[in-house]
């Protein structure tokens, strides 16, 4: 293992050394990391890139859809940035099909991504056998964050499975707390549904719904149980939840007003900003009926086809810098994610991240996130149905199942 790592870092050093000419290579990077923790994280990339001899030009555009739209429009218009951010998944499919992206096969080969990147993540950046993006991190999307103070007050304990979760929620409710803090917006309604799907339906169910669009699964008892469990959660949120922002919901857990929140690991940034540490003021866990299941999403950077050799060199340098071990660890610390390579010593990360690394090490527990499995159009169509189901108490489980099944079948 050690010798392998040594070889890898040699390979990385060769790439870096090779790609460091006298003149600085300029890379303009479009991304949407604008909040406090996020900009600290992206600064890690910028600093490491500068150290490696490049010149980082930062184009931060607030809001993922806005940043992606700007980057795509510039790429189609013939004035592409050097690199642009996407979420791990299908967002850049058509750019690859249209031949607008450069592959990063050389970097992938020299750093041996096949051996060190989890298969689902590697697959998410690979099209027709070529790697078209650098997976810079892995975000877990199905965490439960809970206030240890609220749990102590209610006598609740960390939930072990979904039945136990409802026992704990009832305890919190009996103690006069808001059991479940929720920022009730469409995408978080879907995220909560996905959490139930992963926990109750398991990795298998998750992939069957979003990836295989399996009608048999959707019409079967497993999916019904997921839907009913999801509906049951509604009894544990407060009346102020509709329209609330997710980070305001996190604040409710931070203040101990609410017991827990289901959210991705980016919520840790809010706890950190409030001066709280995992394992002390708040706890984190993934609840599953199937012995574990970690919904993995994340971020990638893709590289539009370079117009000059200089740009090509800058792209190679940037790609290898982003995946270099030191960059990966420091970035994950700042971002709250975990590294996208599994060969690192993660003692420097917080205990939630260490739990995540342990989960990801178990291949059976790896669940590719929603956006890795389904195109945005399908995701959106099903999201609307999930949202209607959550909000409209008169919609029956049968109607929900029928609508989801129709949406899966009707996508062009």
């Amino acid at each position: 293992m050690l010798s392998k790592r040594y070889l890898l870092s040699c390979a990385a050093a060769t790439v870096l050394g090779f790609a460091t000419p006298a003149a600085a290579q300029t890379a303009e990077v479009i991304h949407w990391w604008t909040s406090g923790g996020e900009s600290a994280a992206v600064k890690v990339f910028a600093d490491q890139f500068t150290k490696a001899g490049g010149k980082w030009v930062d184009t931060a555009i607030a809001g993922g859809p806005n940043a992606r739209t700007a980057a795509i429009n510039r790429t189609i218009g013939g004035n592409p940035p050097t690199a642009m951010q996407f979420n791990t998944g299908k967002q850049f499919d058509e750019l690859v099909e249209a031949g607008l992206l450069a592959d990063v096969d050389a970097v992938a080969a020299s750093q041996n991504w096949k051996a060190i990147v989890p298969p689902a993540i590697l697959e998410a950046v690979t099209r027709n056998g070529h790697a078209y993006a650098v997976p810079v991190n892995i975000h877990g999307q199905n965490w439960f964050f809970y206030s240890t103070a609220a749990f102590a007050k209610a006598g609740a304990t960390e939930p072990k499975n979904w039945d136990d979760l409802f026992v704990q929620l009832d305890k919190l409710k009996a103690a006069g707390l808001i059991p479940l803090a929720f920022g009730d917006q469409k995408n978080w309604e879907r995220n909560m549904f996905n959490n139930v799907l992963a926990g109750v339906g398991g990795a298998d169910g998750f992939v069957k719904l979003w990836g295989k669009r399996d009608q048999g699964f959707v019409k079967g008892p497993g999916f019904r149980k997921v839907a009913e469990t999801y509906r049951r959660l509604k009894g544990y949120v407060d009346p102020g939840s509709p329209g609330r922002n997710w980070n305001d919901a996190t604040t409710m857990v931070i203040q101990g007003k609410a017991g827990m929140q289901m959210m991705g690991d980016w919520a840790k940034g809010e706890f950190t900003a409030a001066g709280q540490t995992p394992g002390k003021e708040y706890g984190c866990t993934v609840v599953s009926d199937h012995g574990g299941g970690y919904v993995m999403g994340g971020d990638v950077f893709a590289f539009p086809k370079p117009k000059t050799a200089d740009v090509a060199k800058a792209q190679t340098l940037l790609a290898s810098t982003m995946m270099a071990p030191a960059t990966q660890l420091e970035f994950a610390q700042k971002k709250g994610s975990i590294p996208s390579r599994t060969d690192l010593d993660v003692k420097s990360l917080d205990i939630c991240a260490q739990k995540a690394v342990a989960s990801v090490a178990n291949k059976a527990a790896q669940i590719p996130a929603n956006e890795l499995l389904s195109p945005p159009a399908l995701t959106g169509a099903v999201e609307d149905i999930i949202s209607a189901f959550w909000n409209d108490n008169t919609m029956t489980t049968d109607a929900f199942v029928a609508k989801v099944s129709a949406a899966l079948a009707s996508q062009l």
Partner: protein
Amino acid sequence: MRFNLRFVSGRIAAQVALLPAMLIALTVFCGATGWTVWISLTNSRMLPNTNFIGLRQYGSLFANERWIVSVQNLALFGALFIVISLALGFLLAVLIDQRVRAEDLLRSMFLYPFSMSFIVTGLAWRWILDPTLGISKLAHDLGFEAIQFDWLVRQDRVIFTLLAAGVWHAAGLVMAIMLAGLRGIDQEIWKATRIEGIPAWRTYLFVVLPMLKGSFATATILMATSVVRLYDLSVAMTNGGPGIASEVPAKFVMDNLFERQNIGLATAAATSMLVTVVAVVAPLLYWQSRSAERAAR
């Protein structure tokens, strides 16, 4: 002869001067509209393509529950918004027309909401109506525990909160238009009706109101355009929620165009909106130009 020549060359010069504007209008408006209609007949996703699939996008559009809800919302919102704004605006104008004291101040106050964008309006009303922040909390803090105002988070009522914000925003503008119309009414008419002993309210209703046809048409068209492009109010106030209860067509188009990478469906929705608008607004415009012609005669 010479006069005629000068007349002709003058017309040519005018047309040459208009040419750039016409070209821009033709290429930008007609060209972009045509392109939108064409893309709506393809299976474009993130990038526009030319795979013709006929009307299938329209099929899935009208099978889409969210689109149907959006259209219903817009119809309900639009009808109530126009009627209430017109009625309220007219009423305010009549009240101010009574030569009240501090007329300038009142006029500015009523017109003031219109100076704010829908985003600001929406955000302010969201805070006002939020059951855990706004008037509901105020009432609770004052001891009125029984008062529960949660329309913002109720699926069956949320559209009326949008309506309240919209009317608040627009009534002042209608008032200004109506007031201008009222001030344009010949004083002789008032004198005549007074001599006849007709009560003021009947004069307003049966004499003045019909004379304000033009003002009503102008106000209606202004209201109608803001109904069609209703987007920011929904985004700022509810983001379409709870669920899909306050979705509107423009938001459907925007979401599918960008976030959902579904250009084909988005352009189909945009085209459907255009067809509806043309069907509704064209007769209105025709009616307005006819009444303007008649007034000129």
